[in-house]
């Protein structure tokens, strides 16, 4: 009897040991710690942090473009939006960051056009990408919900997005992850231009839209400047080269500055200098078409 018990016991224990050894994977975790180093890695950037913030901030908020299109009675086209399921294709951080910008722009655009049902899944995508990029804490549900609730109040949306975006940018730069900020900004910008240049039928007042597109010449310069910092990376280099082609189209745009003396003005008891200079953007259908072709090429590469 006792013998039987002890045999059973031995078999049980033996079984456990075998099973344990075959399934256990305890040590790898410790090895992972070996990656850690006590030395800082810093991105080598030619610019001061504040300069980068400034340059990234020059990328216009996509809300502006969407509002302009909506007010100009441009019809909303779902086909222009990056399909939600494409998110499955984005695996690398590079792709994820660019498309975070793309989906963000889509989200804003659809919001302005009150496409709230479809928005939900774009919201999810933005959040998932942000989560993957480990910047999820800037995209908490609270902020995103406020965004969708206040879609009618454009100023408020502008304020929230601008602020969150700036905050994020600053954080990323501070954390030595400015490449990420640059990519998100690039994604946003490219998608914005893509939407604006692919309007099916331009309305009567297409000049305003054209003008806005033409103004982006300056922004592109800034972006390329930023991206050029990371050209060691083959992906960045590719993007840079693509943008070069776009730049060639933008170079056809001529911006004339009409200088006027600044005037001083008292606002709320303080003296403020007001720049009275204006600029005139010379752009025509052909140039827009050219830009459109290049942007479409770059954008479709990004969202693949």
């Amino acid at each position, binding site marked *: *009897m006792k013998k039987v018990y002890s045999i059973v016991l031995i078999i049980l224990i033996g079984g456990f040991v075998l099973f344990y050894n075959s399934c256990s994977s305890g040590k790898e975790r410790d*090895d992972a*710690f070996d990656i*850690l*180093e006590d030395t*800082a890695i810093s991105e080598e950037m030619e610019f001061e942090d504040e300069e980068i913030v400034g340059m990234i901030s020059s990328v216009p908020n996509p809300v502006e473009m969407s509002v302009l299109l909506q007010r100009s009675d441009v019809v909303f086209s779902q086909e222009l939006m990056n399909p939600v399921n494409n998110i499955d294709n984005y*695996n690398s951080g590079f792709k994820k960051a660019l498309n975070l910008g793309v989906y963000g722009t889509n989200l804003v655009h659809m919001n302005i056009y009150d496409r709230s049902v479809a928005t939900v899944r774009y919201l999810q995508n933005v959040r998932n990408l942000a989560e993957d990029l*480990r910047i999820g804490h800037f995209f*908490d549900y609270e902020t995103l919900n406020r965004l969708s609730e206040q879609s009618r109040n454009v100023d408020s949306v502008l304020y929230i997005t601008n602020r969150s975006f700036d905050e994020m940018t600053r954080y990323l730069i501070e954390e*030595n992850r400015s490449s990420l900020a640059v990519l998100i900004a690039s994604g946003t910008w490219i998608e914005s231009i893509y939407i604006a240049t692919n309007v099916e039928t331009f309305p009567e007042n297409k000049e305003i839209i054209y003008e806005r597109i033409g103004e982006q010449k300056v922004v592109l310069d800034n972006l390329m400047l930023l991206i050029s910092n990371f050209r060691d990376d083959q992906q960045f280099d590719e993007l840079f080269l693509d943008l070069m082609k776009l730049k060639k189209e933008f170079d056809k745009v001529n911006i004339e500055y009409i200088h006027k003396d600044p005037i001083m003005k008292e606002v709320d008891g303080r003296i403020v200098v007001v720049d009275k200079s204006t600029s005139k953007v010379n752009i025509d259908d052909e140039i827009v078409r050219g830009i459109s072709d290049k942007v479409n090429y770059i954008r479709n590469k990004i969202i693949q």
Partner: protein
Amino acid sequence: MSEEILKALMQLFAIIAKQDVGLSTNERGYVKSFLRQQLDEASVKEYLALFDSYIGDEKKQDEKKDKPKLTSVKDSVKTLGISKKINKTLEQKQKIVVIARLFELINSDKQFSPQRMAIIDTVSEVFNISKEEYENIKSFVCEDDFEKIDIPDILFVRGEEFENENAKNIVMPEFKGVIAVLRVQSVNLFFVRYSSEKELLLNGLPINEKNIYIFARGSVIRQAKGKPLFYSDVVSKFLSDDKFINIHFKVEDVDFTFPNGHVGLRNINIEESSGKMLAVMGASGSGKTTLLNVMSGVINPKSGNVYVNGMNLHENSEFVKGIIGYIPQDDLLIEELTVFENLFFSTKLVYRDLSDKEITEKVNKVLHNLGLFHRKNLKVGNPLNKEISGGQRKRLNIGLELIREPAILFVDEPTSGLSSSDSENVMELLRELTARGKLVFVVIHQPSSEIFKMFDNVIILDDGGYQIYEGNPVEAVTYFKEMDNQINSHVGECPSCGNVTPETIFKIIESKIVDEYGQPTDSRKVSPCEWSDLFNKKEKSEKSEIEYDKLPEPSKKPNWLNQLKIFFKRDLLSKVSNKQYMLLNLLEAPLLGFLLAFIIKYIEDPTSDTYIFRNNDNIMPYVFMCTIVALFLGLIVSAEEIFKDRKILKKESFLNLSRSSYLFSKIGILFILSAIQATLFIFIGNYILGVKGMYFEYWLVFFSLMAFANVLGLNISSAFNSAITIYIIIPFLIIPQMVLTGAMFSFDKINRGVGGGGEKVPVIAEFMPSRWAFESLVVNQYKNNKYYKDFYNKRALESALYYKNVYYLPELKSYVENSIQHINNDADNSSFKENLKLIKNEVKKENNSEFSRAHSYKFDYLEKLTIENYDREVANELLSYLDGIHKFYSDNFNRVYDIIDNKIRERTRTPEKQSEYQKLKNDYHNRYLASFVKNEMNPLPLVRIDNNLVQKSDPIYRNSKPSGYLNFRSHFLTPEKHFMGSFHNTFVFNVIVLWVFTIIFYVFLYYNLFSKAVIFIENATPIISKRAINFKNYIRSIFVKK
């Protein structure tokens, strides 16, 4: 005797009678008287005419041939023909009778001519009767001086002592003459003849000195005066060759009180010895069955003792139980097995040394005895779905005990529900046991006269457990008549028919006082107590001191492993032969698996028909359902197992079998069934849902949980006494497990009173096997799938760094900054004090964290983090320390992030690689499950609990800090568990925990702790039970009034 035999006999008689000298008047007289014994007057004439006609035929033929002196060839041939014809229709017993009758015929005229003998020889040869028995019968029938025959198969009954060399003797005082009984051993048949001046009655009929009679089972020979000779007396004498152990059974002053306070038995005294059959009688509720239970050692008396050969039954139950048999009123049969199998397995459990062949022989013998041999391959079935009759069931029940040959047998109401012939049959079977030296106690209700007289003694109980009589059954009638002052009280049985009416006894005992209108009232003439006093005053014969035989050693039962094998085989056979059971159990799991998986196979994209595992939101719920299904299946399949067997267990408790081997056999079968069910369920479920590469892990957990549920189910099935209670209990066992799995309700969001929102899994959830199973599966699914396992470790590191960087350090910093405002200002501020404690706790942790060995920052002023020593300088030092490590975390986060990103890029470099990677991800990684294990639903990544900051985000990526060598408690969904100084894979650890649970519940089961607890609770609530009884009476009174 059938017509056929009679005709054959007439023919044979005729052939013999006309040999040599021819028919004599004596012979014809014999035939006539023989026929008279068998038939009524009209038929006698008919058969006699037949006999005469046969004789006539023979004569004519013989005259023609004129060769009367020799047995003609024709006669021989004829004899042969007739014999062969009868051979086919008669049982061996009847053939013996035929031979005896033939001898008797010859003997009637003493014409032992060779021709006649030759004919009988032929017949006996055809009948296959052994030479020895043939000679015995011949001498027994034909010898005039039969008293001188001295062979072992003969028995003499005389008035005084007599010595024989071989023959057996019984002394029957006051008997003048000799009775001889011949045993024909091969068929267990007895013939009787006698010589005496006085007339004797065999079963009430006078017997002739010249004739021989069959002494059938239950027969009795009476003389005018003195003790009768019972069949059992004769049989026991013949059987006394075998050594019997003399059993002396004594019940001494036994009292018994039920747990609810009712008195069951009062001062019972019984003293009996082996070879007797006793009836325990009484009105219903008078404590008959209780007495039987006390006497058999099933329950312990409140006071008093039961001795078997001087050994206290209740104190030495292990030893004494082996010689006690108990046949309860209910069936003890395993319904799914055949008659033979039922007997076979119980025999195997009793005899260790017998081979299967020997056991089969033994069983067949018993089946013959029980008259069940021709039914041996019928399934027993249940009383509603009958395959064998009620009487056969009862006989089989008795057979189960007979095979063990216990020295003392207790039988509870063996005749209830049986026809009178079945009843007599059963009682005769029991009566025969006394012949083999057994002591048989039978609780019996309203026995017929025949049955009543079979008993040697009766014990009569009255309401309230009073013993009011013990003694001879016929005398009982006279005793109570006497006490009732009835006329002819000395007559016990009907003088003309010999019937005894036990009902009279009870009529007298319970007779009511009649009021002035002649209506019987409620009160009895003589109360039970008074009857008891009367009985106690009755003179009792002094019992002399007896020297006890030593009790036999309990028979050698099979060893543990063999018992296990027998139990296992028996259970398996009974399960396999139940087709419904097998079919349901084997189909249930795959059907459930199919149903579940098919329903929740969700395709996210409404425009697509391609199922993508990654996008199915239902994988986590599927895992959860797996645990619930496992619990349900496991519980249901086992919940009735022991309950179903409890009657059989009660019987087998007398065999002193190993409980663990019984339980192991149960568990073994259940585990096999569970393993099959688990395989079917998981295979189908996982296949449909596309859970790839995890079959074994799912199966193991599913099976482990089922195994636990099996053992749990066995526990409840042994603890509760009705099937309904068991099924009421099941939700109580399942629902808490569902709630506390951690899947339906987050542990962060349940009542804080049960440990919700704490740092670790609530204590109550640690006792939920479902939780362990669920956790192990989910953790394993997330971190060990083919897609993710390469990334997991780095992701874990990334997660830890991210948390420190983004949530933890900023939060800690804000506490420090906040504390600076309070320096020197309000030292009494309790929140400041507490915050400082928190800061100290956290900095201490940070100093010792696993990251601290990778960097050189250290905060050296821990002891200054008290309200007295804290100043701006310390605060600044602290802030710079925090900045330092923040930098470290931040840098390393980027480093790890880049490593991971590069790895992904490496694996998605080309479009082919990209799609391969994508496929892997789609097939193995589940988005919703990932979000669940990262606790993304919880908006707070960290919370303050007491004076600690506790991380809530990413539980899957971090281990809990060990808090003791043996303390394995941790947060939910931890990847590894700390135990005995090191971390163990959660999957393995949890599975082991499930088995520990199973083993613990096995121990509960072994010691029957559940059922003890249930009994304890029942007893501990007398007030409630009293209320319940009052309530019950109240309800009853309402209905009775209406």
